[in-house]
C-alpha cells in the first residue's frame, strides 16, 4: 500500500507496522522501549527541564499522566462515557498507599493490589447506580463523585484532614535497582512497565468481545442493547478497568511523593487528564500516550518564562485543538482497516 500523505502520522505508523514482518515488529517494539527507557539519562540534552529535575519530571507529571490518560481513555475513548471525576480513583490508590504504608508493615508492591482493588470497588459502587445515565448527566455525577472523595479525605481523621499524610515509605529495592529521591530513574522504569502493561491489556481487550461491545455502546447505546449486549455490564467493566489503572497510578504516586494531601486531588487533575486524552486523540492509544507526554512535559520545559508558562500552555492547547480538532493522532477511521479484512476474506 502506498503512503499518500506523510503528514498523516497515524497512517504512516500503521503502514510501517502493517508492512513489517514479525522480526521487524519485535525490533521496533524493543527499540522503542529501549529508547524510552534511556530517557532519564537525557537530562543534559536539549530535553532538559529548567528548575525541576528531568528524571523527576519524567515520573511525575509525564509518566503518571500517560498512565492515567490511558486509564481514562478506556472510559472516555473506548466506551464513550464522559468521566470528570477520574481523580477520585487516583486519590483512592494514593491514600491506600499512604494509610497502609504508614500504619502497617506492608510495602508498596503488597499495597499495590489492595489499592487497585479498592479503586475498582469504588468504580463498581459508583458505576452500578450511575452508569444508567448518559452524556452530560454522567459527567455531572462523576464530577460530584470526585469532589466527594476529596472532601471525605479533607474531613476524616484517619486521613489527617488537610494536613495530609507524610512519611510514606518508598518502594523496597528491586534487586540491584534502588529507588532514590535524587535519581528517580527506577521510578520511571516502573511507571513505564505499568504503562506497557496497560497498553497490552487495552490492546488485548479491544480486539475481543469487550472491545466490540464498547465500540457498539459508544456509537449507539440503544442499538447495542438491541444486539443483546448487556450494556450496563460492559460499561461498568470499562469504568472499573479505568479505575484500576487510576488506582495503580495513585499507589505509585504516593510512594514516590512520600507525602500526599487532599489538595493534590482536585477537579483540575481530572480536567487535565481529560485534556491529555482529547489533545492526543480520543480512543487512540498512541495519540493518548503522545498527548499526555506533551502536556505533562511542556509546562516544566517552559518554566523559564515563569508566570507566562500556563498562558503559553493554554495557547498551545487552543492552537493545536483548532488545527487538529480530533487530536494529534485521531482515532482510526474505520474504512481503512476494513479494506485489508476484505482482502483476507
Amino acid at each position, binding site marked *: 500500500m502506498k503512503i499518500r500523505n506523510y503528514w498523516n502520522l497515524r497512517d504512516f505508523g500503521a503502514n510501517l507496522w502493517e508492512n513489517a514482518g514479525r522480526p521487524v515488529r519485535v525490533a521496533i517494539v524493543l527499540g522503542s522501549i529501549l529508547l524510552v527507557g534511556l530517557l532519564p539519562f537525557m537530562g543534559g540534552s536539549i530535553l532538559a527541564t529548567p528548575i525541576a529535575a528531568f528524571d523527576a519530571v519524567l515520573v511525575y507529571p509525564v509518566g503518571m499522566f500517560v498512565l492515567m490518560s490511558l486509564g481514562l481513555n478506556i472510559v472516555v475513548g473506548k466506551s464513550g462515557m464522559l468521566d470528570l471525576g477520574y481523580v477520585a480513583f487516583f486519590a483512592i490508590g494514593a491514600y491506600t498507599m499512604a494509610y497502609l504504608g504508614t500504619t502497617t508493615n506492608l510495602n508498596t508492591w503488597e499495597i499495590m493490589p489492595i489499592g487497585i482493588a479498592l479503586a475498582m470497588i469504588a468504580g463498581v459502587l459508583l458505576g452500578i447506580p450511575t452508569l444508567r445515565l448518559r452524556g452530560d448527566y454522567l459527567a455531572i455525577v462523576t464530577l460530584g463523585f470526585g469532589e466527594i472523595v476529596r472532601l471525605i479525605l479533607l474531613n476524616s481523621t484517619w486521613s489527617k484532614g488537610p494536613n495530609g499524610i507524610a512519611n510514606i515509605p518508598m518502594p523496597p529495592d528491586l534487586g540491584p535497582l534502588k529507588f532514590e529521591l535524587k535519581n528517580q530513574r527506577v521510578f520511571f522504569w516502573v511507571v513505564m512497565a505499568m504503562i506497557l502493561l496497560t497498553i497490552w491489556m487495552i490492546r488485548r481487550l479491544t480486539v475481543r*468481545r469487550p472491545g*466490540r*461491545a464498547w*465500540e*457498539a455502546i459508544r*456509537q*449507539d447505546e*440503544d*442499538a*447495542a*442493547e*438491541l*444486539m*443483546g*449486549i*448487556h*450494556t450496563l455490564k460492559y460499561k461498568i467493566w470499562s469504568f472499573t478497568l479505568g479505575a484500576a489503572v487510576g488506582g495503580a497510578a495513585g499507589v505509585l504516586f504516593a510512594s514516590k511523593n512520600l507525602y500526599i494531601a487532599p489538595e493534590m486531588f482536585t477537579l483540575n487533575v481530572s480536567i487535565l487528564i481529560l485534556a491529555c486524552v482529547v489533545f492526543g486523540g480520543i480512543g487512540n492509544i498512541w495519540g493518548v500516550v503522545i498527548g499526555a507526554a506533551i502536556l505533562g512535559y511542556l509546562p516544566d520545559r517552559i518554566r523559564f518564562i515563569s508566570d507566562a508558562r500556563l498562558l503559553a500552555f493554554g495557547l498551545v492547547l487552543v492552537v493545536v485543538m483548532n488545527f487538529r480538532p480530533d487530536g494529534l493522532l485521531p482515532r482510526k*477511521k*474505520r*474504512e481503512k482497516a*476494513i*479494506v485489508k*479484512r*476484505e482482502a483476507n476474506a
Partner: protein
Amino acid sequence: MRLEIKDLHVHYGKIEAIKGVSVVVNEGEIVTLIGANGAGKTTMLKTISGLRPVTSGQIIFDGKDISKVPAHERVDLGISQAPEGRGIFPGMTVLENLEMGKFHRKNRKAEMQEDLEKVYHLFPRLKERVSQAGGTLSGGEQQMLAIGRALMTRPKVLLLDEPSMGLAPQMIANIFRIITEINKTGVTILLVEQNAQQALQRAHRAYILETGNIVKEAKASDLLNDPAVREAYLGTGAHQ
C-alpha cells in the same frame, strides 16, 4: 410464538404516552401499527424490545410475561428490533454491523457465514458495500443494514420501526417487498408505519394508534378500503 400486549401503559416522566394498548401478533403474521406523528408508535416498539420500561400491563411472548426482562435478554428470546432512524453503528463497516447482530449468539461462529449469505441474498446491495462504513451509506442502504442486522440475531419476531422513513418511493417499494419475503421465511413481523398505504397492502392485520390509544383494529385489506381511514391516513385517494 405469539406476541400479546395486554393493557400496556407507558410513561415519559409524568406524561402518559401509551394509555392501555392491547395488541396481538400471531405467529407468522405481518401486523402493522399505523398512526400519525406522536401517536406512540415508536414508544410501543421500544417498550416491546425493552428499551423503555413498562408502567403497567403485560407483554406476553411465547406464553411468558417478559415485561420485566431486560432488553438484551429479550434478544435471546427472539425479539429483534430494527430501530427508527436506522440506528446502525455509523463507524463500523457493513460487515461489522452485521457481525454485531451475532454478538449474543452462543454458536455465533458456526452461524455467521450462513446468516451473512441469507442477508446478502435479501439485500445484494449490502454485499457490494461490505467494507464501507455504515455512516456513509445512503438512507435506503442504512435501512437495509438495520433490517439485515436485526435478522442476524435470528429473530422469531421482527420489530420494524418506520422502514420507509425518508426513502425514495422506489426504495420504499423495494423495502416492503423484502419485508414480505422475510415474513415468508417464517419470521413474524410487527411493523410500525406512517406510510399507511404500503403498510396496509403488505400486512395481514392492522391497528390504528391515536395519541396512545388503539382506535381501530381490522384486517389490513378492510382498512385499506375504509373511508374514514382513507380520509385520515391515505391522503389524496379519499376524494377520488
